[in-house]
């Protein structure tokens, strides 16, 4: 009996990880190899810390977006939700002297609520997620400006700034937060009933309804979870900067989508794993880091990042097509 289940277990893991993830993982390792070869600074402790911290933020939003991509949806307001949560949390701490735990919970709740609002609008009116979240992107960023009045909220208590800039067991604390979020969401998508429902809805919402899955509830829940994760990233960023401002999270949209897609999560839904979001985020961070180390003109860095992302996605699609033939 033990033998059988062990064999079956290895059979199960194979196609899931080794099969689907070997491409992106190889790409990540090759890039790290290239980095080590071309730049003596690449593997220094200082640079690795910088990269790991970057990975913390991009990783969390990539996991959040990955969850929605698995549904076949996309949330372009995810950065604005991050900002909103960070600002609400900072405002409660600084202006209203809330206890840090309550303020952080309020920040997570704000993110979840904002995500749930997106999900509710999309399911109730049966609208396209891209269209709805372009609208709410403007709403949430507007709220961010209104709450901060365009000013920076400063003076966050030390109790919370530790979560942004402290280290624990020689890793930055945000990295631990990201890893916790990753394990949690990986488990959610692979071993829970909710995860199965998520994949089912992403594959075919009609088929899901016919087998008795409440497609709307699954969708709204996924949006709320993604919103809470974005909120976590936004708050960590505020804690890292010792302040909150309306621009928090604005640059996260591109990596949040690019990372899971590079990691093999299809934008059409139902294909890929949360591993893909993490590995894709790793690739994005290494690319960004190499561009800086390589001395690319500051004003051209965005151009180069964008080009590399497009090329990576195109290469992946090409290889897939060749595999099929």
């Amino acid at each position, binding site marked *: 009996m033990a033998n059988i*289940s062990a064999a*079956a277990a290895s*059979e*199960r893991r194979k*196609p899931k990880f080794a099969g689907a993830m070997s491409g992106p993982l190889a790409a990540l390792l090759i890039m790290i190899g290239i980095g080590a070869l071309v730049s003596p600074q690449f593997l220094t402790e200082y640079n690795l810390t910088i990269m790991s911290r970057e990975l913390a933020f991009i990783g969390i939003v990539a996991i959040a977006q990955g969850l929605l991509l698995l549904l076949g949806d996309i949330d372009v307001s995810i950065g604005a939700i991050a900002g909103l949560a960070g600002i609400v949390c900072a405002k409660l701490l600084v202006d209203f002297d809330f206890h840090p735990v309550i303020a952080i919970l309020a920040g997570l709740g704000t993110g979840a609520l904002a995500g749930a609002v997106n999900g509710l609008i999309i399911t109730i009116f049966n609208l396209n997620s891209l269209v709805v979240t372009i609208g709410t992107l403007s709403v949430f960023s507007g709220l961010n400006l209104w709450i901060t009045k365009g000013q920076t909220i400063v003076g966050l208590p030390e109790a919370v700034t530790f979560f942004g800039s402290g280290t624990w067991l020689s890793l930055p604390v945000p990295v631990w937060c990201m890893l916790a979020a990753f394990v949690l969401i990986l488990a959610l998508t692979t*071993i*829970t*009933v*909710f*995860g*199965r*429902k998520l*994949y*089912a809805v992403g*594959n*075919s919402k*009609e*088929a*899901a*309804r*016919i*087998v*008795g*899955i*409440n497609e709307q509830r699954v969708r709204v829940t996924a949006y709320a979870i993604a919103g809470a994760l974005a909120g976590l990233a936004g708050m960590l960023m505020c804690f890292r900067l010792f302040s909150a401002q309306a621009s928090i999270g604005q640059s996260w949209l591109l990596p949040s989508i690019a990372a899971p897609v590079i990691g093999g999560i*299809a934008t059409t839904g*139902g*294909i890929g794993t949360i591993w893909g979001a993490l590995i894709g985020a790793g690739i994005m961070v290494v690319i960004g880091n190499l561009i800086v180390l390589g001395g690319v003109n500051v004003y051209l860095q965005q151009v180069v990042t964008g080009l590399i992302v497009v090329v990576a996605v195109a290469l992946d699609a090409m290889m897939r097509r060749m595999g099929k*033939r």
Partner: protein
Amino acid sequence: MTLLKAEGITKRFPGVVALAKVNLTIQPGEVHCIVGENGAGKSTLVKILTGLYKPDEGTLTVEENAIAYVPQEINLFDHLSVAENIMMPLDGRGQVFFNRRQCERDALKFMSELQMESDPSALVKSISVAEKQLLQIARALANSAFKLLILDEPTASLTKREIEKLFGVLDALKAQGKSIIFITHRLDEVMRLHDQVTVLRNGEVVGHSKGQQIDEEWIVRQMTGKDIDLEALYRPTVPAGDVLLDVQGLTGARFSDVSFNVRAGEILGVAGLVGAGRSEIMQTVFGLLPRSGGQATYLGEPWTFGSPAKSIRKGVIYLSEERKTHGIFPHLSIRQNVAAGLLRTLSQGGFIRHGAERETSSRIVADYKVKTPSDQVRIVNLSGGNQQKVLIGRALEAAPRVLFLDEPTRGIDVNAKDEIYILMKRIAEEQRMAIVLISSELEELLKCCNRIITVYNGRLNGEIPEDRISKETVINAIIGADHSGGKNGNTTNQSVY
């Protein structure tokens, strides 16, 4: 004067030989039927003939631009007019501005050749499936003076009358000296059309006939490699038991005042034209569509018409006719497809019981003889028949009392059909399940049902008991008896079998 000659065509994909040493010759003015079960290599062969794939071995001799290909899936611009669709890419005349009248005049020429009835300025989304099928051929006509037309299962969603019309068009093309490759797995179509027949099985040509006397039995034997009795009956023979579901005066958006019942251990057929409201009635009972009136009793208690989830829990299951879009979860494995429908029993405290999941899915694969190397294969890679076996197996796992099967054998080959009929009979007889079989295939209803109800234009217009089931009684009811002489198709979007 040979139009196309393929010799020793071999094509391998990783792990499988899709085609092995296939020979094919086409003469001008003949219809060549290619038949075979799903996965026999028909589509691969077409893709090689049309140049989409390169063969690994063998030679293909064919004139350039001689082939026009109409794929199985309808591929049209829904929001452009019929004429624009035909004349695409619209650049024949080298003019800069688009002249709509000119375009429609040009299109009309091809449309009349194919006896199309649509208005050239109508939007494609508003025309019938049959007209769309003809439109695809018209487009081929407009684009090239082809000599060989390849049609890949063009009749899959057409009614009998529409099929006859299509065949008339094919006869006319043939008379002009054009050749046709016709891919199908419907035997009567082969008998009606063929000059040559090539039967494929597992990538090999296992039967070929030109001018010989062949019959349907011969084709089936070649296709499946075994004898299948085409006349066999699959009706449950154990007498039916109590009424399990009794529907009274049910009314919904596209049907009204529908009453019927179904008993334990019987197969109740639901006949009617496509669009008559058959599926909608059963989907409403299942809780997928809203109800505007009527009641039902299930196992002696009032039925609530709640949601699919509630119906399934109470033992009423519906399998959609749209297997690809409303049935399977294409990119999930067989195992995950099984689990998605049985989450309640395969989980504990919100977590999947992986052992139970694995055990259930391998049992379904074994019990229903699903042909697959493992239950970890993505379900989309299985043939239609095997997908259907997984879906039926999953439904039965929930031990339903009433099972609605909506076109369960659409697009499924003879062999798998036979297996599904045998399975239906067995579960009706042994588990005393009530099966409601919605079907557009007359033969299927005649062979499998203990009783048939007929739907015409959103109303029940007949109930045929077992001793009166015949082709004539069913057809007369389906077409609404006295309406049958009149012109139909325009107002109700229905047409005759």
